[in-house]
């Protein structure tokens, strides 16, 4: 390859990488009201980096001390004050209706059981870290990751922040719904369309979330008996009217058209991803018999629910510090490769930068939640790519010791290491896929990150070979370019 061709290709690639690096890392205002948020600042991060959100759930008959003191402390409303003082008893930091305390142990046990069911429901959300705590025996505190990016956390991206909080709000609202499943003939109906002793959830074999090509749905698999029974109800209904699926006294907005008999034993309700996930978890839980006994955060009989955002445990700028660590790891890899392999090290440096950009873009586009463990697995990918390149460079160095020409050494070096590199990447890519598919929550995210890292590593292994060919072609001292010392034989003098 000629000097000009080599320079043009190298310049184009370096320029493309530089432009992508700028867009990936630098945020800037585009007008007085608009702002461009870099790829890196819009990566969704775990609770340790962007904080948690929590809500305290008060069962019917329990109110917070704050709500109690608002009424009791209001000296103007004596009647209500007297009512509260007679009605509630302080239990730790909450106030419980005396009626509920008649069978105190049973009430406590019901709250604990509800907390366990709620914990299991939130576990199915696949959060990187969440907690369900029974507070003072009579209330439940649910804490989940805020699922925000750095831009959302710092309110540079207000819409993303509000979307993340809305999603959490919906999750808390729906996953804490009490009561059984029922089918009703209107959205305001208070009674089931089924017989008194009929259990609507027994009509279904399984209720799950179904995803295909970016669309999401709640899938109801009917049993044979359930199919027949539901078909009778549907056929008996007048055309144009609907039946509504309820959990407790809340409609989920899912309707069954009456008048037209069912043809399939599976029913699908297409929804947004978050709604489809929340509804499928809730319905599956209720279907399995995990029904909450108490009604939570009903403004009439308990304290209204508030969603509170918590500062990240690692501090407000934890994500920045994490970025600094990753940057230092990249710099260390670049410096080590340049020191060891001179100008060839720069090709490895370019590869490492491209790998980092690929990871940032992938995390951003796929929407994988980055946690501390995720950052470590991405660094393991960085180690994989660096050590793979070093392994090949060393194999080529060995070939040069045999007295071969530079081209022959590179060719043989790559040939001899190909199967080893392939074995390494095949094992790792399959393992990463297994972790992503079988694992759950943070583990699955780590598996997915490593899957992308291994694919990037193998692709960049060939990119290194290409760039080596492009950059070394016009160079006269090819051995010096790579930091190799050529074996000099006596007869060559």
């Amino acid at each position, binding site marked *: 390859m000629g000097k000009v061709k080599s320079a043009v290709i190298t310049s184009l690639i370096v320029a493309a990488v530089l432009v992508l690096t700028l867009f990936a890392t630098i945020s800037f205002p585009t007008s007085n009201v608009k702002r461009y948020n870099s790829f890196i600042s819009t990566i969704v991060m775990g609770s*340790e980096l962007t904080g948690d959100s929590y809500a305290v759930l008060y069962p019917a008959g329990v109110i*917070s*001390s*704050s709500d109690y003191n608002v009424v009791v402390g209001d000296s103007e409303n004596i009647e209500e004050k007297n009512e509260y003082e007679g009605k509630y008893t302080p239990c*730790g*930091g*909450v106030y419980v209706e005396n009626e509920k305390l008649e069978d105190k142990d049973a009430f406590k046990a019901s709250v604990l059981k509800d907390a*366990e069911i709620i914990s299991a429901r*939130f*576990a199915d959300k696949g959060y*990187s*870290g969440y*907690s*369900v*705590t*029974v*507070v003072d025996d009579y209330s439940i*505190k649910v804490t989940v990751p805020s699922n925000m990016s750095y831009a959302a956390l710092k309110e540079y991206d207000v819409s993303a922040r509000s979307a993340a909080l809305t999603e959490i709000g919906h999750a808390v609202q729906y996953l804490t719904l009490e009561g059984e499943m029922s089918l009703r003939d209107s959205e305001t109906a208070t009674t089931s369309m089924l017989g008194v002793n009929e259990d609507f959830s027994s009509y279904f074999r399984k209720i799950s979330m179904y995803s295909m090509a970016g669309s999401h749905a709640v899938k109801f698999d009917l049993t044979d008996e359930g199919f027949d029974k539901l078909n009778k109800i549907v056929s008996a209904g007048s055309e144009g009217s609907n039946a509504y699926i309820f959990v407790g006294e809340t409609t989920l907005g899912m309707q069954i058209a009456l008048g037209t008999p069912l043809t399939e034993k599976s029913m699908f309700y297409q929804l947004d991803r978050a709604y489809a996930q929340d509804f499928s978890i809730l319905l599956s839980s209720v279907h399995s018999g995990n029904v909450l006994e108490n009604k939570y955060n009903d403004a009439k009989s308990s304290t209204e629910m508030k969603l*509170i955002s*918590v*500062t990240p*445990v*690692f*501090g407000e*700028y*934890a994500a920045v*510090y*994490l970025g*600094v*660590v990753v940057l*230092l*790891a990249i710099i260390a890899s670049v410096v080590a490769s340049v020191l060891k392999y001179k100008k060839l090290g720069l090709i490895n440096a370019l590869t490492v930068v491209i790998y980092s950009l690929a990871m940032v873009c992938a995390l951003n586009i796929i929407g994988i939640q980055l*946690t*501390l*463990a995720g950052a*470590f697995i991405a*660094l*393991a990918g960085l180690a*994989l790519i660096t*050590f793979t390149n070093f*392994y090949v460079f060393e194999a080529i160095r060995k070939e040069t010791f045999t007295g071969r020409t530079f081209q022959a050494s590179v060719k043989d070096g790559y040939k001899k290491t190909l199967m*080893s590199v392939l*074995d*390494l990447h*095949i*094992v*790792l890519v399959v*393992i*990463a896929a*297994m*972790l992503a598919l*079988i*694992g*759950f*929550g*943070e*583990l699955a*995210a*780590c*598996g997915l990150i490593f899957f992308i890292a291994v694919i990037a590593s193998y692709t960049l292994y060939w990119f290194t070979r290409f760039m080596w060919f492009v950059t070394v072609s016009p160079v006269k001292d090819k051995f010096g370019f790579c930091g190799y010392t050529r074996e000099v034989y006596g007869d060559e003098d």
Partner: protein
Amino acid sequence: MKTNFGFSSKMHLFIIVSSLVIAIGLAVGIICQFVAGGFFNYGADWADYKEVTITYEYVEYGSKDKVVEICDEAFAAAGVKSFAKNIHGSTNTGGEITYRFTLSTKIEELREAVTAINNAIKAGIEDGTLVLSNGAAYVGNTIKGGSTALTRMSIALAVVIVFHFVYFALRYKLSMAIAAVIADVHNLALFVALLAITRVPLGSTMFAFAAITVVVTVLCTCFAFDRVRKNLKDDSINKLSINEQVDAGANQNFMVNILVPACLAGAAVLMFALLSISSLSPLAVISPVMCALVGFVACAYGNTFFTPAVYCGIRSLEDKMTTAQKAPSKDSQGK
């Protein structure tokens, strides 16, 4: 860097060291299961705690800081220290200030502080500095979640280890496949044992770090056994005894086996230092960072010292079995 360690001759030493650490870890874990409420020290998202929440509404600008000041003084007077503090809300919509304490903090001391806070706030309301505020102390018993994550992680890791064995048995040699599986299990067991011994507060993030430990082990065994496989084709190395062959391979791979986990461990230490500054509390970041550090230490020791030594033992056993199988067939030919 060239090294010349005799890994193979120290097989028994490494096995004893590993067995001891794993046994101590199991013993500590089992004892703690009965006396300290858990095999591990459950912290982070699984920790029980005590908490004081101060709710405020319509506080004038600057008064939020006054509430925080009142609270800090009250806690200091009561002799209690929180490990986490969260200030939420705005001055026009109101919000909450939350102080979290360890479970061992006495609730009476917290209630005493809460009374002091409420009295101070009452005085503030009367003189017009504050509008409305209320403090209360709570005890939180956290449900130990993670059973789904634990089950799925166990299945995932089991499948990963089986695949590691099958692939190595097909592409490398059976003895290498056995050694690779032993390496996976050993490093994972060491990870668990060290976490039990060090009593690092653990949450659900430990599942991910357990998987990272296995991934790094697989990465290092791929490099290590590839070297051994190549050495088997090298006549100059093939002439050596099994011990010398394994030692040669292990020494050639010493840097990779040490450097991969060491670089990651270095990143963990750096993260610990920087995040401690960020959070103003090393205790807050100790859980995931120590998890990572323990995993990488287990990998560095397991891949560099334990696995080559054990592989040497397996190779010797394999050779003995091959010789024993060949001997009767020679005898029968002689007859």
